[in-house]
Each structure stands twice: as C-alpha cells, then as structure tokens.
C-alpha cells in the first residue's frame, strides 16, 4: 500500500521463529494473515504501510489484500496509539450499568474525547461495541486486559496505576 508514499524502512519481524510457527499451523499461507498482523501490531503498536508490505510478501498476495483486512477489523490500527488503549464497552448491558459515566470520567480527567490520545501519548480513549462480558458490566478493556464491574472509583485507581 505504501508504494505510493515516501519510501519507508522495511518492516522485519523481531522473532522469525514465531513467524515460522504461525505458518506451520495453517494449510495455506494466506490463512496466516490475521495472526501475522497481530504479531506485527504487538511489536510495532500499529500496522504501518511497511508492515503491510512485509506481510503481503510473506503470504504472497498484493498489499491491497492485506490492507483490506486491516481496514475491516476493529482491533488493527493504522496509526500509533497511546501506551494504554482504554476501550469502554458501550453496548446495552454496559450502557444501562454506567458505561457512559466511565467515558465521561476519562474525558473530564484527561481532556480526551473518544478516538483521541493524550498529548503525552499515555492514553487513547475508545468506545467499543460489546466485549462479551455483559454479566460484569460495565466493562473496560485496557490493552489486552478486561476490567469488569467497574465503579468510577475503581476505574480511577486503575487509570492512576498505569504508567
């Protein structure tokens, strides 16, 4: 995809063994696409144009096809994010149990609206759809971890504890 853009440094996977292991699990190369994107994003924090080029080379398809995937799935980011992605579930069960107040709390405290990142790049705030943990609403996913049954106070403590 970045063939039109200014040349970027080629993206290289830090752990080629992991790449090999991923490929060994699937009967064909292209099935490895999502797993490789997860691996690359864990390394880089987001999916850059050079990540797309590298993965397209590996799975032997056009970069546009990899980009097609990246744009479709909500967990892939094409721009750098804050160190901590605060993802507040906003679907019905969380919504009727105080999810909006959690979003407002972050907005008031750090002056960021959903979709924005603090100037010091500490937090990115996002509203997300159902996280599949409705029984412990309201739920916030911060990076990989779920935090369930949050009150404003517990949420606050949690945010303070993040570097």
């Amino acid at each position: 995809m970045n063939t039109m853009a200014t040349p970027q440094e080629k993206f290289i996977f830090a752990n080629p063994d992991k790449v090999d292991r991923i490929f060994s699990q699937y009967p064909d190369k292209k099935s490895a696409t999502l797993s490789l994107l997860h691996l690359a994003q864990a390394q880089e924090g987001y999916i850059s144009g050079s990540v797309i080029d590298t993965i397209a080379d590996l799975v032997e398809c056009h970069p546009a096809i990899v980009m097609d995937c990246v744009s479709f799935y909500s967990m892939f980011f094409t721009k750098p994010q804050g160190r901590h992605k605060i993802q507040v579930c906003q679907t019905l069960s969380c919504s009727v149990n105080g999810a909006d107040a959690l979003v407002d709390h972050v907005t008031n405290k750090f002056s960021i609206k959903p979709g924005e990142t603090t100037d010091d790049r500490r937090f990115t705030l996002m509203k997300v759809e159902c996280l599949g943990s409705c029984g412990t609403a309201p739920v916030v996913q911060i990076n990989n971890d779920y935090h369930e049954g949050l009150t404003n106070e517990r949420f606050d403590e949690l945010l303070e504890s993040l570097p």
Partner: protein
Amino acid sequence: MNAFKPVLTEHIHQKDCHTLPFYKSVGGYKALEKVLAMQPDAVIQEVKESNLRGRGGAGFSTGVKWGFIPKDSDQPKYLINNADESEPGTFKDRLLMNKTPHQMLEGMIIASYAINCNTAFIYIRGEFYKEYQLLKKTLAEAYQANLLGQGIFGSDYNLEVVIHRGAGAYICGEETGLIESLEGKRGWPRIKPPFPAIEGYLHCPTVVNNVETLACLPHIINHGADWFKSIGSEKGPGPRLFCVSGTVNNPGVFEEPMGISLKELIFDRAGGIPENKQLKAVFPGGSSSAILTAEEALDVKMDFEDLVEKKSMLGSAGVIVMDETVDMVQACLNIARFYAHESCGQCTPCREGTAWLVKMLTRIVNGQGKPDDIDMLYEITDNIGGRIDFSKGSFGKTICPFGEAVAWPVRSFVEKFENEFRSYIQQVEAVA
C-alpha cells in the same frame, strides 16, 4: 420436574477446574476413549438422536450438520470451534473457556473424529486475550498427554488443533464470515448454498460448531442420547447456559434445562430488578432477538418453540433485562448503533439501512424527529430484513441473517413502545 443438576458448569467453582488433572479426576476424556472405539457414523448417529441443537444462535441440529459432510470426498475435512462470542448479552462461551477448556476440547476431538477431520481450529474472538493464552496452555497439556497429535489414546486417529485469533468483527460469528476470516480475508459471509459442509474452509468440507455445543458432546457420549433428551424441552433438549444481564441484581450465567420460564430466570436466578423497579422489556436471546414486553416476558418458556410463538427467538440465550427507567428509544438506538458498526458492508440494504436507522434514531433522541419517522423506521427495517419468517427458514434481502438480526429488534422496539417514540417526536412538534 426433577431437580436439575448442572452438567456443563458442575465443577466451575472448584479449584484448578481448568487443568487437565482436575478434568481427568472428574471423568474427563472418558467419552473420547469410548468414541475412539466406535465407528464415526455411530457417533454421528448418537448425536443426531440426542437432538442436540446448536448453542450459537441458529439452533440447527448438530448431528444433522455433521451428516452433511460427504463421506466419499478425499479432500481434508475441517472442524472449526466458533469461539467468536460477540452477540450482545452473551458471555457463556467465555465462561466455559476459562473454567472448563478441556470439556470443550474433548468435544472438539469427538466432533473431529466423527467427521473424519485431522485439523481443527478454535476461532476465538480477538479481544479474549486471556482466554487465548489459557487455551494455548490447555492445548499444550493435551498434546503432552497424547490427547492431541498422532495416535490419540493409542488409536490410529490423528488430530492437530490450532487456535486462531479473530480481530474484532461481530460478523465473524456467522459461520461463513468466520471461514472467510480464517482464510485471511475480511469476514464477508458467503452466499449459501454451497453450505460449509460441502465447501467451507479452503473449499473443503467444514463443520463450524459453537463452544457450548461442543461442550455438550462428552456428556452425550457418556450418558447417552436418551439421557440428554430427558432434560428440558422435547424439541430442543439438554442443559443450556442462560446469560442474564442488564438491570438485574445478580447478573451471570445460569445453567438450566431448556424450557425454564423467563420469569424464574430473571426473578429467581438473577435476583430480580434492583430497588424493586418494574420490568419493562427483555431481549430473550441476544440483541438479535425481538424484545418482549414485561407481560410477554413473564409468560414465556426459554426454549426454541415457545419463543418463536412469541415472535422472538431463543438465539444465543443471552437475556438482557431492561427496567422501567430504561428509555426504549435510546435502547433501540444503542442496539441499532451496534449493528451499524458491525454491518460488514457487503449488502446494500444492511450497510445503508443500518446507517439510516442510526441517523433517524439519533435525530429522534435529539429532539429533531419528524412525524413520519416512525413509518420510515418500519420501512427501513422492512427493506433490510423484509421477509422475516423463521418458521420457513427464509431470510430477507441480505446474504446472511445479520439483516434480520437488526431489523427484528429495532422493529420490535418501535412496535411495542411506539408511544415512547411518539412522545419524543410530539415534544418536537409542541416546541415547534
């Protein structure tokens, strides 16, 4: 009814219940040992006879689905465990993965054996990172104990199981969307037929089963089809994990026989509504089901038939409770927004229709609704999922049932609480 003893969740409160030694100590993998001495056809027959119906939402017979796999094909067969749990109001598969991953895995091995599959996948939703890490350990334990790999339990049966993470897309819970996603593409559902059993993953015969469905299998093998059929409703028997969330005192997953009353589920198991508020409306089977009014909800059994009679569905058995303080127009907007966000964009009625629903509902909530908005909401839902008749198995104007899944609940909100929509709009007229 005899006192019901939990089947799938019997041990979830015990220490180390997720480990292999624990699972074996309560009879784990005995069913697999039994199955490996059976002919695959006999396994399919037993599951057919049990009348186990899929726990993901569609409720199709598991044994019949397996039976569609061609026996004369020399192509590889694939089993995919659908662990992409994303239906709003549903959080049972996550519980099973966290607490009894081996139960699910044993079910996977049984299903794989029955359909002659040597490579199976667990498609787990990307957000479930902790469960992904846990399942990696589960698989490692199983390989170590020769429950997976070559020559399982000393038989000549081989099976590899691969965990594959999704990346955030509700539509990948639809089985052909899931298969596309596994193939490294956007999760666009396929036109059916061909069904996955004939042409699924990489054009090969494929079965996609839900986590809870698979978890039932060891019990069916251990105790027999007749035992399974003796639990709960006749036409859709067995234990079922009911998720209750929303405005209730004690939300959670409750394992009950099929056919438990919704009233008992809400007011007994889930502890009723906080501060003794009145019940207003309920999603009985995830956000894709038509909502029930309080009156309807208090008079319904949670099984396939009774809910269809009430013009709703059991779906994923995800019950979302809304008390008197919940604004029906805002709740409707919340659900419409979910579907607009998750629409895969492939079919025009759904892609455009969901966006319009959100625009219209937003303007109604913001006090800018127009008198004919209500008719237009009906028109749009009609245009997305016009021919809703589950009894005939017909879908509307889109490739997959997602169209119905948005049209149904939105329409039910407007139909059953039209006054609330009107009062938003009338306020506007009064001001004007």
